C-alpha cells in the first residue's frame, strides 16, 4: 500500500490544475500539494519574521508549545476534513470534544481503569458522530442543521454529566497518554503524525478514501456507479466524532483537567483550518496534509501574536489579517500558474 502514495498518477487534491504529463515526480507531488505547500511556507515565514523580533520564537521550547497546542486542533481538523470532502460540515466537534473530555475525566474520577475511560470517551464520540451520520445519510437532513443540533445537545450534556463542574484528573497513567514518549518522540506528536499519514494514505490510496471524494464530487454519479453513498457518509461523520474524542482524550491527558466548555469555538477553528489548507466546502477537494497545515497556521499565528505582546484588543484583527494574507498568497500563486500555463 505504500506504493500508492507516490503513484504519479494518483489524483491531485487540487481542483484547478490539470497536471502536465511527465515531469519529475517531485514536481508533480509538489503541484499536487501546492496549496498545502504555500500554507506551510506561510507558517515558516511567520515564525522566521517573528524570530527577528523575539528570538525565543524558534527555540525548541516554543516549537514544542506550538506542536502541543496544535495537536488537538489538527486531529479535529482531520475529522472535519473527512466530512467536508463529502460536501458536508460538522459543527458538533467542539461540543463533542467537551463532552467526551468530561466523560473520560468523570470516569477516571470514579476510579474506572484508564483504558476503559478512554474507550468510553471514544464510544461517546463515535456515537455522536453516528447520530450525525444517520440524520444526514439516512434521513437526508441538512448537515448544517443536524450537526448544529448535535452541537447544542452535546454542549448541554457536557454540563449535565458533572453539573458544570470542571474535573481535575489525577491519574498518572492517563497523564502519560499525552506526555509519554516512544522512540524519543512524544506521544501527542506521534499521534498527530500517525493520524495524518494514515488518513492521507486512506484518502489517496484506498477504495473508501476515493469514495469520499466521489461522494463529494458528484453524489448522484457516485450512487449510479454503485458507491455506497450512505455508508461512506456514515463513516465520515462517525470518524469525525471519534477523532474529536481522540483529541479530547489527548487534551485532557495533557491538561489533567476537563471542562464543559473546553471545546468552545473549536468547530469554527477546525473548519477554518481545513478551508485555509485548501479544501472546498462544496466537497471533493482536500487532503489530510491540508488539515495539518491549516491547523498549524492558525496555531502559529496565535502564538506569534501572543509572543509579540500585541494588545489583546487588536489580536483578532492581526490574526484575521494574517490569515487573509496567507489565503491571498495562495490565490496569487494559483493565478500566476494559470497565466503562465
Amino acid at each position, binding site marked *: 500500500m505504500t506504493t500508492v502514495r507516490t503513484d504519479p498518477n494518483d489524483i491531485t487534491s487540487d481542483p484547478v490544475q490539470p497536471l502536465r504529463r511527465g515531469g519529475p515526480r517531485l514536481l508533480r507531488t509538489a503541484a499536487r500539494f501546492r496549496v498545502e505547500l504555500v500554507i506551510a511556507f506561510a507558517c515558516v515565514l511567520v515564525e522566521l519574521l517573528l524570530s527577528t523580533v523575539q528570538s525565543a520564537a524558534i527555540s525548541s521550547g516554543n516549537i514544542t508549545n506550538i506542536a502541543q497546542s496544535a495537536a488537538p486542533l489538527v486531529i479535529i481538523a482531520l475529522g472535519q476534513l473527512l466530512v467536508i470532502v463529502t460536501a458536508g460540515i460538522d459543527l458538533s466537534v467542539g461540543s463533542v470534544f467537551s463532552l467526551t473530555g468530561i466523560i473520560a475525566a468523570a470516569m477516571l474520577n470514579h476510579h474506572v481503569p484508564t483504558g476503559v475511560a478512554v474507550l468510553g470517551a471514544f464510544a461517546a464520540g463515535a456515537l455522536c458522530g453516528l447520530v450525525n451520520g444517520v440524520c444526514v445519510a439516512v434521513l437526508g437532513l441538512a448537515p448544517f442543521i443536524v450537526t448544529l443540533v448535535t452541537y447544542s445537545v452535546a454542549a448541554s450534556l457536557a454540563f449535565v454529566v458533572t453539573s458544570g463542574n470542571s474535573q*481535575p484528573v489525577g491519574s498518572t497513567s492517563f497523564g502519560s497518554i499525552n506526555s509519554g514518549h516512544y522512540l524519543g518522540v512524544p506521544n501527542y506528536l506521534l499521534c498527530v503524525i500517525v493520524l495524518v499519514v494514515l488518513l492521507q494514505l486512506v484518502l489517496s490510496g484506498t477504495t473508501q478514501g476515493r469514495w469520499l471524494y466521489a461522494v463529494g464530487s458528484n453524489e448522484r454519479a457516485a450512487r449510479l456507479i454503485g458507491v455506497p453513498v450512505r455508508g461512506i457518509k456514515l463513516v465520515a461523520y462517525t470518524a469525525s466524532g471519534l477523532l474529536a474524542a481522540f483529541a479530547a482524550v489527548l487534551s485532557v491527558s495533557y491538561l489533567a483537567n476537563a471542562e464543559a466548555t473546553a471545546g468552545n469555538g473549536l468547530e469554527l477553528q477546525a473548519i477554518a483550518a481545513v478551508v485555509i489548507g485548501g479544501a472546498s466546502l462544496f466537497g471533493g477537494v482536500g487532503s489530510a496534509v491540508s488539515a495539518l497545515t491549516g491547523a498549524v497556521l492558525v496555531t502559529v499565528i496565535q502564538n506569534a501574536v501572543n509572543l509579540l505582546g500585541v494588545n489583546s*484588543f487588536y489580536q483578532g484583527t492581526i490574526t484575521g489579517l494574517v490569515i487573509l494574507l496567507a489565503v491571498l498568497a495562495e490565490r496569487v500563486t494559483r493565478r500566476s500558474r494559470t497565466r503562465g500555463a
Partner: protein
Amino acid sequence: QDSNSAAQGQAKTVKGLKLAYLAPSLDISYWQWVYSGVRQEARKHGIKVTQYNANNSPGAQLANIKTAIAAGAKMIVIGPVSSTSTPPVLAAAKAAKVPISFAGIGPQPGATDYTSAITADNHRTGVEEGSFVCKQAKQRGGNKVGMLSLPQDRENAQKYLRGARKSFSREGCKLVQILQARTLTVSEAVSQTNDLLTAHPDITGIYGMYDAAGTGAAKVLKTRRLVGKIALATADGSPTTVALLKEGTLQGLFLQEAVGQGTQAVTQDVNAMLGKPTTRNIPLSEPLVTTRSLNSPDSQKVLRRTYPSSAGPYN
C-alpha cells in the same frame, strides 16, 4: 387572578412562590455556585427557583426576565451580563413590581429601582491581589509580572486590572504583558502562559484573574519545573485551584464568595416581599487564602461560602 397579589411588602409568606435566577452565562462555574447558594436559601423558605441563561447577550437577558415574569416569578436574583445592560431589566422588574437583587455584578451606577446588590469588590481585590503577587514576585528576585486576564469588556475585569495596576506601580512591579482570555478554558490559559513565559522568561509572578487561569498557569509551571520560582495567585477558586493551593503550586487564592452572594440575594428579596428592611449595597471582599492558611477554620468557612460541597472537597 391578580398577578400582583403577592406584590412587594404585601405578602404574609413567601412559601410556594417562584423565584427566577438570571445567569449571564454558564461558561463559568461561578454562576452555578451562585445558583447553588440561591437554591440553598430558597429551600429554607419553600421557594421554587428557575434558572435562566443569557449566554452573555443583553438581548437574551431582557427576554429572560420578561419570560420569567410571564411564567409567574415573584422574586428575581440576577447576575447581569454587564452593569450597563441593567436599566431595561430594572424597568421590567419595576413594571411587574417584583423585587430584584444583584449577585456578583451590580446595576448601572445611579440606578435606584432595585432591592439589593451583593457584589464582590473587584477593585479592592485587584489592589490586594496585585500587592500579593508583587510581593511574592520580589521575594523571588524580580519585579516583572504577567497577567492572565478576563476579557476586558467585562467591568469586573477592568476593575481588577485598575486595582492591580495601582498596586504594581505603588510597590514597584512591572506588568509586562496582559493576555486576555476568549474562551476561558484551561487549554487557552495553558497556551497563553506558555507564550507569556516564552516572550518574557524573566517574570517572577503571574496574576490570574479567573479560575481556569490559575489551573492553566499551574499546569505550565509544573511542566516547566518553575513551581516556586514564579509566584502564582488567582481570583475565584474552585476545587481544582484549592488543590493546587494546597500542594503549593499556587500561593494565593482570592475567593469570590459565590454561594454567599446567592444566599444573601435571596434573603434580601424575601425581606422585600415580607416588608422587612433590606440593605441596598452589600460589597463583599474577596478574602485571601494562602497555602499556609488553608486549613484554618476561617478559611474553611470562606470556602463553604465560595462553592458548594457538590463541586468537590474543600481541602
